[in-house]
């Protein structure tokens, strides 16, 4: 029985007391007093390199500082894309509660930081206005279904949920930044019709979508989603910042290109896909992609060859590798640079229904932000349209590479330094800098 015998009799778990004893003398990097304290009115540095203990919550600290009107800067490429935030009580409290590492800066320290930035491929960007954030997600979606929702909640960045009625009703204009939950804009409920036939969650999803289509007076769900896609495109043209992951990227492109052609299977709209659908797609309407070919088999939850990994097609499925973030000139292209701020240059890939974007189907004006070197696909792309921008990141959940339906949700408190999630949060702060700095 070894030494376990006494556990039962003394109540067992007394480890808490031992931990309390060990606590004496311990020192945490993010705690007040652990860095040099600045003078009143001075700035704190939030390092975003390996010294940071909670990168994700650091974005929330910066967002909150901007929201409160404090002078906040994003130091692009400086120690992993660090922030300068006001050294005030609110920031100290927030960083202590969140476990975000901060370093006090005196005037000399600040000068040194600015000098380093001036002499290197770095830039300082003032964050002026906290973006109003919306997430396009169905009312029945669990927060754990979507990486962006999880990231925003974890980082304490406020957002509003919008769905088809709000989009069709023209309410997107009230938001600076819009993220698309992994929605299927072809209106086929991710083509899970056969794979997950009988699953209650799928039945609920189909029923809710059909009810929304009826409520908004559309003939069927594919027709509704095409109209939503058009509104999303208009949102970008009018100056909105659109960010999408997973299925939303590819299906938004297909829905836009399929404005005048039926690309939905019979189970979705009662009629089979137009036999000549491929040839009838109008790619001039799409934002990022062109010349893609549709997957015609309704039983395979794959939409087209825009996705390079084809995770749901066993015959074509490609293994996961790693993707590499591009280096941009921070002084010339601060916008692209913002989107790739990270403490890691190479990040393990992760699957989604749409995992990647084949190079062949990209439009010439697309900007590739991250790629898998040597592979025929890229991971992370960005582009302008009208007065706004769109950004696509393939994959579903950066910390759940094999993501399966029904898998346990990701607990971000176990991944506070996730480089993949940082890419999502870069996008949220992106619109905060637009007035002075964005040149794209």
């Amino acid at each position, binding site marked *: *029985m*070894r*030494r*376990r*015998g*006494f*556990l039962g*009799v*003394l*109540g*067992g*778990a*007394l*480890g*808490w*007391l*031992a*931990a*309390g*004893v*060990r*606590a*004496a*003398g*311990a*020192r*945490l990097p*993010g*705690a*007040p*007093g652990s860095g040099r304290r600045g003078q009143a009115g001075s700035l704190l540095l939030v390092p975003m390199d390996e010294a940071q203990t909670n990168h994700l919550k650091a974005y929330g600290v910066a967002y909150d500082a901007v929201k409160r009107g404090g002078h906040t800067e994003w130091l692009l490429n400086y120690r992993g894309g660090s922030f300068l935030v006001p050294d005030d009580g609110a920031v100290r*409290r927030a960083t*202590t*509660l*969140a*476990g975000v590492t901060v370093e006090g800066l005196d005037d000399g320290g600040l000068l040194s930081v600015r000098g380093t930035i001036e002499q290197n491929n770095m830039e300082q960007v003032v964050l002026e206005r906290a973006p109003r954030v919306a997430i396009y997600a169905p009312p029945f979606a669990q927060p*754990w279904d979507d990486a962006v929702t*999880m990231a925003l*909640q*974890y980082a*304490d960045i406020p957002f509003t949920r919008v769905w088809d009625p709000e989009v069709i009703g023209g309410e997107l204009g009230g938001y600076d930044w819009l993220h698309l939950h992994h929605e299927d804009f072809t209106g086929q409920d991710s083509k899970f019709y*056969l*794979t997950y036939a*009988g699953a209650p969650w799928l039945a609920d999803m189909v029923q809710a979508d059909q009810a929304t289509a009826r409520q908004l007076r559309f003939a069927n769900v594919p027709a509704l989603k095409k109209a939503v896609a058009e509104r999303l495109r208009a949102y970008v043209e009018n100056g909105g910042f659109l960010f999408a992951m997973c299925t939303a990227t590819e299906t938004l492109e297909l829905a836009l290109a399929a404005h005048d052609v039926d690309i939905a299977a019979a189970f979705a709209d009662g009629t089979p896909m137009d036999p000549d659908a491929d040839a009838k797609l109008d790619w001039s309407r799409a934002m990022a992609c062109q010349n893609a070919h549709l997957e015609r088999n309704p*039983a*395979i939850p794959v939409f087209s060859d825009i996705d390079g990994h084809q995770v749901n097609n*066993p*015959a*074509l499925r*490609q*293994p996961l590798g790693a993707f590499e973030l591009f280096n941009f000139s921070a002084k010339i292209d601060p916008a692209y640079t913002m989107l790739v701020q990270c403490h890691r240059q190479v990040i393990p890939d992760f699957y989604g229904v749409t995992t990647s974007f084949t190079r062949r189907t990209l439009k010439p004006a697309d900007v590739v932000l991250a790629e898998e070197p040597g592979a025929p696909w890229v991971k992370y792309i960005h582009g302008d349209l009208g007065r706004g921008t769109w950004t696509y990141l393939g994959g579903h959940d950066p910390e759940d590479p094999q993501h399966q339906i029904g898998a*346990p*949700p*990701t*607990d*971000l*408190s176990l991944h506070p330094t996730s480089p993949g999630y940082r890419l999502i949060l870069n996008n949220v702060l992106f619109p905060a800098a637009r007035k002075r700095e964005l040149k794209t």
Partner: protein
Amino acid sequence: MRARARLAPLLLVLLPARAAGQTALAQALNLEQQGFLGGAAAFYAAALRAEPNNPIAMLGLERVSQQTGWRDSAVAYAERAIALDSTDNTARGVEVRQLRALGRDSLAAAALARWRAADPRDPLPYREWAQLSLAAGRLDEARAAVERAREQFHGAAVLAPEMARVLVAEGEWRRAAGEWRAAVTAEPQVAGAAAFGLRPAPLEARDDILATLTAPGTGAGPGRRLAADLLLGWDEAARAWVLLRSELPPPGPLEMDVLRAFADRARTLEGAAAQRAAAEAYELLAGIEPPGAAVATRVESARAYAAAGDAAAARRLLRPLAADPSADPAGRSAAIAVMIELAVRAGDPGGAARQLASDSAALTGSTREALGRRIAFGWLRLGEVDSAGASIAADSSLDGLEVRGWIEVCRGNLAAGREALATAGAAGGESAAAAERAATVALLDAVGRDTLPALGAALLLAVRGDSAAAARALVPVARRVGGAGEPALLAWAARFATAGGDAAGAEALWREVAERFPTSSVAPASELALARALERRGDLRGAQAQLEAMILAHPQSALVPQARRELDRVRGVVP
């Protein structure tokens, strides 16, 4: 590594073909194991050039080609192997699989047709095609392959596992059970796959499955044994055992294998019914096994009976073994040890001590000491501290020193107890036990007394299982001790109050420690515990405020990372 891979053909031409092939194969396996798939592919290819029909190299090349995306290469080597030996089924399978994976369905179908033509009596090509179709989710294709095989080979059980998987995918559980019954009758070795395939069946389908498997007729025996296995997995161990016992194979090795597999599996399950089923199966097995093996099986049966709560049955099995000086020494020793443990567990450390004394000669020294420690804990649970001490008087091991430490603490000899526990070490044994020792040493340091019988008496109450009384007894001791000992003892009292079901009393004590002793070493742990108490009674806002207060007040505490995680959970920002 790439250079090594390129050099492979140059080096290998210098060796005789077979030796070169074996060398390359060893290199390939080694590189694959290390994750150098490109290099491994080159060496597998070199091995196949030397021995085109080597199945290990062929399958290795298929594996790594799949991951490196060089499937075309595998196809070329497979075709070469087939050209040299048309009966090479390994190569035939690789050719078909890789062509399918490349999306060249028409070429794959042609390769399949050639395979069938090469040996029209072999159903393997159909099986391969059915399995590929199943993996791709093409159920109609899989079904068509099975049906064609059945037409050609005139057997209802041909490709039964594949048809069963098709039917499971379609939700046809009853018919799938029929296919699996046919499969296990024809090929008993697929029983594990059958159980794996049918176990996920929904509740409403299970009766149909069992009826199909247990119906009389051909295959009733294997079908019922499969049903028993399924019932075990569905938490119906008693029913499973009744079914299995009624349908055991004729006496012989198969009967023993069936009983052993059932008992071993039931033993790993939780619950008294599963343990009893295991115990009865082991007992039956012990009756038919050769005498040498039967002793260990009988002891395992007794352990299972004890785990099921039937000490009498356990003793019935063990007593003859323990009393038989001619029995296998290891088996007899195990039987005596289990009997002594049973006595301790039954609250009879005196009886256990007597048996240990009388059977001492049959036990090794370390077993005697381990049993002595069990008996000591048994005495402590009865409050008999002196008897506990006597039980380990001759034990000089580190584990014995730890027990001696606990005994001294319970006597109120805090300095002696502290020294023994500290010597036993904070790192030895299981981590929970080590943490318990460290916590106790810290408590005794905080109390700072050499002797304190009232504290020993309070802790002894906890040892005896009366946590609520221990909590009540500790509070006045804490008030009397004062100083750093007071918050430490109050925190222990709170812990005991929680264990004793007095949540309100515990919460009041945690709060007292947090408010009156905010700088004490136990304050962070107490504040965290207070937050948890608030959360347990549904006061999430209070819990959140308490966690925030704890983090802000003790930012350097080692408990802060945990508090931050709990804060996120209470706020609903993580699952």
